[in-house]
């Protein structure tokens, strides 16, 4: 049964790295079944937000809370967050030479969804179907994780994991970068399949509105200098596409 709590609830989040503040009071709620987008220029704090939700050890949270289904994420190790249902599709996924994709997928599914889900004919079928949907060749399974992958292959591989892991919260950090238009369509299909009609939520982090043409967000938030300065419906993404970020920066400066 779905909880009344939002999937993700961030309150007054302040965080930084090496005593340099990056996030200056973020508030954000993503209810079950909704897809939200965070847009902003480089350096606005988008990737930092994603990393803090996932628990990257380089960042220090100085104030605020981050809750998943009402549970305190900040008290958990990254792997505990993953097992609770947080998934981050990385902007730059790490290569792990020597670790075979097939082996890695079995282990991650076993860790997050349980040993039983990661074996047997049903898992093989789910894997095969997801790979077909994402147009990923079977030979992928014998390659090493992200090693020698093209930019597009890395992003498809992240989405393959999203589809297999079925997280409560999917964070997609610049998943559209490095993808051509066909790749964006394919990946968007994967995101929609993983979130729409489920109790999960998703947070899409992006510069551009391109991916949002294929994954309709319920809400768009604009992040400037570590603060969400404006939130709106999908039309806000189109407005940003037309007008850029400058007008919002000016507004933010005037209201500061």
């Amino acid at each position, binding site marked *: 049964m779905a909880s009344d709590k939002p999937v993700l609830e961030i309150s007054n989040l302040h965080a930084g790295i090496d005593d340099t503040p990056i996030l200056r009071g973020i508030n954000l709620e993503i209810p079950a079944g909704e897809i939200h987008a965070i847009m902003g220029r480089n350096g606005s704090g988008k990737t930092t937000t994603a990393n803090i939700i*996932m*628990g*990257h*050890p380089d960042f220090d949270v100085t104030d605020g809370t981050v809750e998943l289904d009402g549970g305190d994420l900040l008290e958990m*190790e*990254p*792997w505990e*967050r*993953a*097992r609770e249902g947080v*998934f*981050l599709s*990385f902007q730059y*996924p*790490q290569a*792990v*030479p*020597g*670790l*075979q994709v097939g082996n*890695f997928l079995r*282990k*991650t599914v076993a*860790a*997050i969804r349980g040993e039983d889900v990661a074996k047997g004919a049903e898992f093989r079928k789910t894997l095969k179907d997801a790979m077909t949907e994402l147009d990923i060749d079977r030979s992928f399974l014998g390659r*090493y994780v992200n090693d020698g992958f093209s930019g597009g292959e890395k992003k498809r591989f992240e989405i393959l*994991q999203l589809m297999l*892991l079925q997280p409560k919260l999917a964070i997609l950090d610049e998943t559209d970068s490095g993808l051509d238009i066909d790749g964006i369509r394919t990946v968007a299909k994967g995101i929609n399949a993983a979130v729409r009609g489920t109790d999960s939520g998703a947070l899409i982090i992006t510069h551009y509105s391109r991916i949002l043409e294929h994954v309709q967000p319920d809400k768009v938030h604009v992040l400037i200098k570590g603060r969400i300065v404006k939130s709106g419906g999908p039309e806000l993404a189109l407005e940003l596409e037309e007008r850029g970020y400058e007008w919002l920066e000016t507004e933010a400066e005037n209201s500061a």
Partner: protein
Amino acid sequence: MDAASLYKSLDQPDRADHLWRYTPWKRVHPSGDLDEIPIAASPKLTLTNLDDSSALVGISVEEGVVGAEVLPESDEVTASFIRAAAKESVYTLRVENNFVSNSPIMLDIDTGDSNCALHLTLDIGRNCEFELITQISGAAPWTGFLRTGRIGDGSILNDVVIGHTDTGILLRVDSIAIGRDAQVKAGTVSSGSERTKADLRYKMGETGGHLNVLGSILSAKEMHLDHHIEIHHDAPETFSRLDWHSACGGNSRTVGTGMLRVAKGARGADAGQLFHNLLLSDKAEADSIPELEVSEHDVVGCGHGTANGPVDEDQMFYLESRGFDTEEAKDALIAAFLNSTLVEMGSEALHSWLAEHLQEELEDLNS
């Protein structure tokens, strides 16, 4: 002169030598009294086909047959010492010309529980094609293992030696010639003994020889694993690569020293060596010293390199974000690091056997 007399006539090794810099002879001698040559027992040898129990035809182990001599390029002290200790333990692995096996051949060497020595000659005929896993296991306090011999012309051999003794000292010497146009992968998987000193020398004395030397070394606790690899390019158009991965944890130490010699006249030689070390604890130590001696100008390439580092934090975070707990992520990265060389050692069947072996070793070390 017999081996014992030869050993006694030699000067004791000098620590200034490349070979003895990190592991003095005294530390890998069975008693520490360098004049003493112990009576060593003979190990139990079993030759089987890894995948089925069918009788082996064209390949056999013959007892008491003294095969090839030690190459002049090899270190006389260790080779003569093991020959003397293995006086009653001399075998030849004889492989007929054109022998082919689709599944790996397993040579089990069970050392038993007392000092043990073995001189094994590889007498591998022409145009053979097979994979050989030599596994040294047992509880001997000291094991000396000398391999001499030649890989026949045109043969394709994946030759993997696994040092898997429970504890004790393993002194291993390879002194092997690569035949004309032979293609050899010489793998070492080492994870068991308390102390290992291996001196592996390959002579590329005939045109067209192709050699890949690969190491997957896992050390933990108080282990000291020292591997010296020398490749001699004496003939034209010979190719070699050395790729050596050591993962080093606890208070352990790994040493990898390489020597690549390209003789005058070895035109078109192509040789390279790389050592990679993964440091798993603050107290672990890994030393790699690759050296080159190139006397021929007309070579395709001769290079060497070494890289040391701890477990990559970004890789750790990636795996943790996928639900691997900290220990699981670390183990997966160690296995991946060692697998990079393991996977190059041979076929899928061989690799899957080796990967399983490695996984068990990792679990043992964590227990």
